[in-house]
């Protein structure tokens, strides 16, 4: 018997929408077009969020500027001090580019395990960072724990900011401004990205823990960055847990115990996939898995 598998007619909003799509050949052309369209326009990267606007009952914009053909935005440059990732790099390309760099394991895993293979070949890292109201974005906590910087460009020039700051200004990012690249410092560190979807693949994660730690010769934590995604509306660092780990040997059970003591600082969000309390209650288990995975890396 077939249950619940109807062919969906296009939502009315899609049918009636009349939007323009401009395929920008260069960054300059994209910035010019975005600035001209102002609030009526926006960037179109992978489209995996935008094309689902009608399902969220959000109108499509009048104008889209497709950035996928801009060569400068599609490259990953691995330097000796930093890795620079163009904002239109897809999850699949990013995962492949970082596959042999263990210090970036957390980001490679975030890119390689989100969604499903066809979506990973479309969705971009810039879209992942720029999408408002997408609490479960995998690359955001991964990049928070790697201390990433975001470059934003407009017709008037480019500026660089910490990802934390970008997330604060994201809701008010002026029309005409584009994320152009993500810059991640290189260093020796152990990292891991652990996500809990309800099914093994395909679902949004209920909660995400991204971890990066540098340890001394005796195995004690010198520096740690831990970020939590999907639990609250916007991913953020778990600074009290980070501080509690400093100077201690990184061990999975100990980290999970400390996480249990500190988890009440999170106020979970309710969602169709999971209630707020559940998202918070799984955090210690994810911290245990993240620490174990980082130690194994």
């Amino acid at each position, binding site marked *: 018997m*077939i*249950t*619940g*598998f*109807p*062919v*969906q*007619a*296009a*939502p009315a909003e*899609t049918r009636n*929408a*009349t*939007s*323009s*799509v401009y*395929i920008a050949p260069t960054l300059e052309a994209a910035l010019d077009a975005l600035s001209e369209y102002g609030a009526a326009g926006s960037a*179109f990267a992978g*489209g*995996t969020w935008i*094309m*689902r606007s*009608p*399902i969220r009952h959000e109108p*499509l914009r009048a104008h*889209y500027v*497709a950035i*996928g053909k801009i060569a400068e935005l599609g490259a990953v440059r691995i330097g000796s001090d930093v890795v620079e990732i163009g904002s239109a790099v897809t999850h699949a390309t990013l995962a492949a580019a970082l596959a042999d760099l263990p210090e970036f394991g957390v980001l490679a895993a975030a890119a390689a395990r989100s*969604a*499903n*293979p*066809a*979506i990973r*070949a*479309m969705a971009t890292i810039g879209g992942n960072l720029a999408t408002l109201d997408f609490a479960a974005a995998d690359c955001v906590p991964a990049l928070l724990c790697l201390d990433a910087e975001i470059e934003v460009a407009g017709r008037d020039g480019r500026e660089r900011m910490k990802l934390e700051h970008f997330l604060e200004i994201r809701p008010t990012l002026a029309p005409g401004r584009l994320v152009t690249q993500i810059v991640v410092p290189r260093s020796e560190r152990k990292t891991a990205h652990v996500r809990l979807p309800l099914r*093994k*693949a*395909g679902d949004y994660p209920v909660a995400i823990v991204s971890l990066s730690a540098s340890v001394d010769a005796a195995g004690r934590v010198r520096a740690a960055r831990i970020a939590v995604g999907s639990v609250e509306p916007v991913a953020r660092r778990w600074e009290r847990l980070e501080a509690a780990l400093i100077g201690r040997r990184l061990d999975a059970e100990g980290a999970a115990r400390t996480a249990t003591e500190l988890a009440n600082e999170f106020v979970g969000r309710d969602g169709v996939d999971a209630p707020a309390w559940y998202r918070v209650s799984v955090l210690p288990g994810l911290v245990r898995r993240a620490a174990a995975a980082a130690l194994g890396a």
Partner: protein
Amino acid sequence: MGLSLTVNGDRLASAADPTTPLVDILREELHLTGAKPVCREGFCGACMVLIDGKPTPSCLMPAALADGCEIHTVEGLTTHGQLNRIQSALEASDAVQCGMCFPGMVVSLTHLLTTRPDATREDIRAALTGNICRCTGYERIVDATLLALATK
């Protein structure tokens, strides 16, 4: 401005709005109904087509960005009415029930066969994580894919 789409080797014009999902043009203008808009969210894979050789959910592909690309739907995977390797293996393995998910499965598996001739059972399962079947379970589909991989 009209769009020009190359579908299964034929060049076709469309006057659709540029953000119209490709699946709607395929079904309603071109009457290629193999691709099924089931979730319209990129979750189920029933609308999967090959765009420049890559499996792509056609519900998320705006017509404007498909302009100029090579699009292959499930209808275009047979040659002179001959089923391709994966289609034959699925048929031989009785791996088909209602058929709702199958066009998308065939598209994803055709890509796997051409790009990963050494694919293991795990690789096949991973490649199908974007294709949801509500009827059959996956075992026969995976078995059929292994059979197709073994058939040169």
